[in-house]
C-alpha cells in the first residue's frame, strides 16, 4: 500500500474554511435576496403604472359622462312634461263626451206620439265620463203612460249600444188634463220626465287587497 502524503493540507484547510465563511455566505444571501426584492419592487411599480393608467382613463370617462348624464336628467324632466302634455291632450280629445251622436240616438227613438219639450244634460269632469240628462216631454195615445214607458225603454236600449252604463228612470210621470190631437184623433196625454245616466270610459283597476298583519 502506497503511502500518500499531503504536504498542502494546511493550505487546503484554509481554502475550505474560506469558502464556508459565514460572512461571505451571508453577504451572498443578502445580495441575492436584495436582487429579488428589487426585482419584485420594480415589477409592482410596473403594475402600479398600469393601474394608474386605468384609473386615469376611468376618471376621464367619469368626468365626461357624469355632467352629461346630469344635464340629460334635467332635460329628461322637460321631455317627460312634453310627453305628459301630449298624452293628457289626446286623452282629453278622445274621452270627451260627444253630444251630437247622443242627440241623434235620442231623436231616433222618439215616435210621432211623443213630443220632447226640454232636454238638458251635464257631463261630470272625471276619468269615467258620467252624464246626467233630463228629458221632459208629452206622450199621447190611448194609454199615454204606456207610450212614455215605451220611450224610456227605447232610449235605454238605444243608448246601451254606445255607452257602458245606462240608467233611464222616470222622475215624474203624470197624466195631463190637456188632450192632444194626433192624426185627427183626440187622445189623452201624460207629462213625463226621464232621468238618464250614462257612463263611458275605463274605470281604474281595483287596488290589490293588502294582507293583514298577524
Amino acid at each position, binding site marked *: 500500500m502506497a503511502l500518500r502524503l499531503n504536504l498542502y493540507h494546511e493550505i487546503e484547510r484554509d481554502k475550505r474554511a474560506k469558502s464556508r465563511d459565514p*460572512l461571505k455566505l451571508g453577504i451572498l444571501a443578502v445580495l441575492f435576496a436584495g436582487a429579488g*426584492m428589487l426585482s419584485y419592487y420594480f415589477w409592482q411599480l410596473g403594475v402600479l403604472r398600469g393601474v394608474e393608467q386605468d*384609473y386615469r382613463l376611468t376618471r376621464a370617462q367619469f368626468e365626461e*359622462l357624469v355632467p352629461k*348624464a346630469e344635464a*340629460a336628467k334635467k332635460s329628461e324632466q322637460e321631455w*317627460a312634461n312634453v310627453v305628459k302634455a301630449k298624452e293628457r291632450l289626446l286623452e282629453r280629445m278622445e274621452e270627451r*263626451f260627444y253630444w251630437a251622436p247622443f242627440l*241623434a240616438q235620442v231623436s231616433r227613438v222618439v215616435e210621432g206620439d211623443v213630443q220632447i219639450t226640454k232636454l238638458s244634460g251635464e257631463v261630470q*269632469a272625471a276619468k269615467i265620463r258620467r252624464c246626467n240628462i233630463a228629458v221632459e216631454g208629452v206622450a199621447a195615445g190611448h194609454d199615454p203612460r204606456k207610450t212614455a214607458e215605451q220611450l224610456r225603454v227605447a232610449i235605454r236600449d238605444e243608448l246601451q249600444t254606445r255607452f257602458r252604463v245606462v240608467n233611464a228612470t222616470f222622475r215624474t210621470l203624470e197624466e195631463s188634463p190637456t188632450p192632444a190631437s194626433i192624426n185627427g184623433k183626440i187622445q189623452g196625454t201624460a207629462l213625463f220626465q226621464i232621468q238618464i245616466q250614462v257612463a263611458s270610459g275605463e274605470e281604474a283597476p281595483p287596488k290589490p287587497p293588502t294582507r293583514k298583519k298577524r
Partner: protein
Amino acid sequence: MKLGKEETKRLFLAGTFALAVVYAFFNGLLGPVLRDQVAKRKSIAELAPQIQAAKLALAKAQESEKAAQSAKDVLAQIAQMTPHGAPVAWFPPQVAAAFKTEGSDKALTRLVGETPEKEIAGYDRVSWAIELPRIEFFSFGQALAEFENSHPLLEIYSLSIEGNREAAETQRVLMSAQHLIKK
C-alpha cells in the same frame, strides 16, 4: 466551526443591517406602491357603477328625447288648430259661423272664465257660455256634430234644449263649454 468573538459581532451587525434593509424595503419602497395600487383599484371600483349609471341615464334620456320629439310634433299640430290672439276675438265668430242656419238667430257667446290648465303646461282652460236663441233641432244637430269634430280641444259640459213658446217649431239652446287654448 467555531466563530470568534469578532466574527460573531460582525455577524450580529450584518443581521441587524439586513433586518433594517428588509424593513426599509417593505415600509419605504414596496409598501407605498402596494398601498397606491389598492387605493387606485378601489377608486376604479367606486367609479365603475357611477359610470354605468351615467351610461344608462344617457341611454334613457336618448329614448325620452325621441319620444319627446314625436310628442312635440303632435303638440305643434294641435297648436295649429287654434288661431293666434285673444280667444274672445276669434271664438265667438267661429260659433256664430258654425250654427248659422236658415231662420236661426245669431249665437251669443260669452267668456265665463280663463284659468291656467293645471295638468297641461302651457295651456289655458277657457270657459264659454253659448246661447242659441232660435234654432231648428235637426240642422242644429248637424251643425253641432261638425262643431264638435272641428274643435277637438273643446268639450261641451252642459247642454239644454228647450222649445220656444212663441215659435213652436224652433228651440232655444244653452251650452257651456270648456276650451283648451295654448297660451
